[in-house]
């Protein structure tokens, strides 16, 4: 995904810098440009890229007294600090409570992968021994209930939905009520795709939130999304209490930088990534360990220590 690839692009740019004897304005400019292009090609929000570039330039004071070796170190650590800032939401991940109902609502743009992902998510917890159920609160999309029903049936996960009720709030409420009474632990609510330009769809999402009072709201984002990612994600966060992100379709060619910008906008951690259409094409994602793995690469060993100082 984006960070792994960026990590290698950036470290080769940093290496190239190491090879040049003098570190002057031009060397720094080239480095900042290379990083900017790599980020832009990965769809990171243009404004975020600009900010990151400016931050690097500002932090690395070339006129300072430091000798070449320390300048290099400074540049290294600044670049990676900025990269981490991009990814790390600083918010703790929601922790499922054993023996209690945990209501999790999934939201996102049309076609992002919500319905596919809710089953993967449910299956993940079911395998770990949690009592898990699915609710279809998408009464809009043609075939939405059949899609969830077929997936849930294959995975042997109890589900709730209706072919006749056309108010998603009613369906969601009824489903949550039933599964609460039956002492389910992970109760997952799938919702319709929506976008910020259509106010009624956002209002419906707020009503859903009020009705079912989710313990966590997961924002699902397609890894191929470009510059529209940030404004959409921001609007979702402002409308409902988004607490986690899942990035889908990372089995494709897309680098996921748009999705990263969305993560930055939601200020929520990425908890899983989707890597295919099948139920177990799903991986847990820990941004902390991902970043430290990135930092542990090649000549960057020990950088973590520098950062901690």
């Amino acid at each position, binding site marked *: 995904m984006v960070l792994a690839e960026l990590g290698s692009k950036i470290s080769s740019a940093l290496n190239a810098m190491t090879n040049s004897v003098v570190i002057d304005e031009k060397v720094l400019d080239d480095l900042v440009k290379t990083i900017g292009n790599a980020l832009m*090609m990965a769809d990171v929000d243009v404004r975020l890229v600009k900010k990151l570039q400016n931050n690097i330039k500002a932090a690395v004071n070339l006129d300072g007294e430091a000798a070449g070796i320390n300048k290099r170190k400074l540049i290294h650590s600044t670049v990676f600090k900025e990269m981490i800032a991009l990814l790390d939401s600083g918010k703790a991940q929601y922790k499922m409570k054993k023996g209690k109902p945990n209501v999790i609502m999934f939201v996102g743009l049309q076609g992002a992968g919500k319905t596919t992902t809710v089953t993967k998510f449910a299956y993940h917890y079911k395998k770990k021994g949690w009592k898990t159920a699915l609710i279809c609160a998408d009464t809009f999309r043609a075939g939405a209930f059949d899609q969830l029903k077929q997936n849930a049936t294959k995975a042997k996960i109890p589900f709730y939905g209706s072919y006749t009720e056309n108010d998603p709030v009613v369906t969601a409420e009824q489903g949550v009520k039933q599964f609460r009474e039956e002492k389910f632990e992970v109760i997952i609510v799938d919702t319709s795709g929506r976008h910020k330009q259509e106010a009624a769809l956002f209002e419906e999402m707020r009503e859903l939130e009020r009705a079912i009072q989710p313990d966590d709201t997961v924002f699902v984002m397609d890894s191929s999304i470009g510059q*529209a990612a940030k404004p959409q994600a921001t609007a979702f966060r402002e409308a409902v209490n988004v607490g986690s992100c899942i990035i889908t379709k990372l089995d494709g060619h897309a680098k996921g930088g748009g999705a990263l910008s969305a993560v930055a906008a939601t200020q929520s951690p990425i908890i899983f990534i989707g890597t295919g259409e099948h139920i177990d094409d799903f991986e847990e994602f820990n941004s902390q360990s991902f970043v430290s793995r990135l930092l542990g690469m090649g000549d960057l060993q020990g950088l973590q220590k520098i950062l901690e100082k």
Partner: protein
Amino acid sequence: LWSRFVGKTLDREQLEPVMEQFRENLMSKNVAQPIAEQLCDSVCADLEGTSCGTFTSVRAKVSGAIESSLTRILTPKRPVDVVQGVLAAKKQQRPYTICFVGVNGVGKSTTLSKVAAYLMSLKFKVGIAACDTFRSGAIEQLRTHAKRLKIPLYAEGYDKDAAFVAAEAIRRAKAEGLDVVLIDTAGRMQDNLPLMRALAKLIQVNRPDLCLFVGEALVGNDAVDQLSKFNAQLTTLQSTGIDGIILTKFDVIDDKVGAAISMTYTTGKPIVFVGTGQTYKDLKRLNVSTIVKSLLK
């Protein structure tokens, strides 16, 4: 003082900072990075050494050149006319066949239903072939649309060979005197070779009159890779690959309309329709000048 009134010759040094602004603006409007780069480079090369009129600023000159370049990219050399196609096939007493392809979740099935509604409004007899035999709910999704639109749907169920489902659908449509068959296919990643081969087989066996790539306006840099790989995989001795593009979710992107450029620049294929919402009426033609205006804003 005089020099202010004398036309000047543009050199790279004057052009570069202005180009940089335009390049960045194009990327912020979601034009893929390498395409924004190439486009600006070629405009810059064209302008270098030309004279800039007395009262025109470098900026205005660059803007004009980019505007015509963008317009050229978006204006198809060979437009696709679906209605003409259907009429021509009708004369040969056979149904006109359109196949919808693309990556997962972009809006293929929804767009197919919109195209069905559009062709029905022109009094054509339309049928649907359910050749996504993989994704859960795919067949029920189309059945719902077919019921609403009151048109026939041919489906054999899940896990069937899509190429043969399409062949049988076309055979029946001919027997029943339908004018158009719309073929839905499963979404797939352009890098997934087995799935891409299965799609190439469907195209080879059935030789649809029109193969439309459905891409979403939300897509960023991946647009380039999606289109070039779908086109390459589907171009064979029997098939010319992608004939045209449908750009969906145009209502979701405000003025970030750059995917239109990324997609047409990559293939030179026209954007046949634009999807602007989730109902049957949300199918529009591309308005080139509006897009160019948004991109330059």
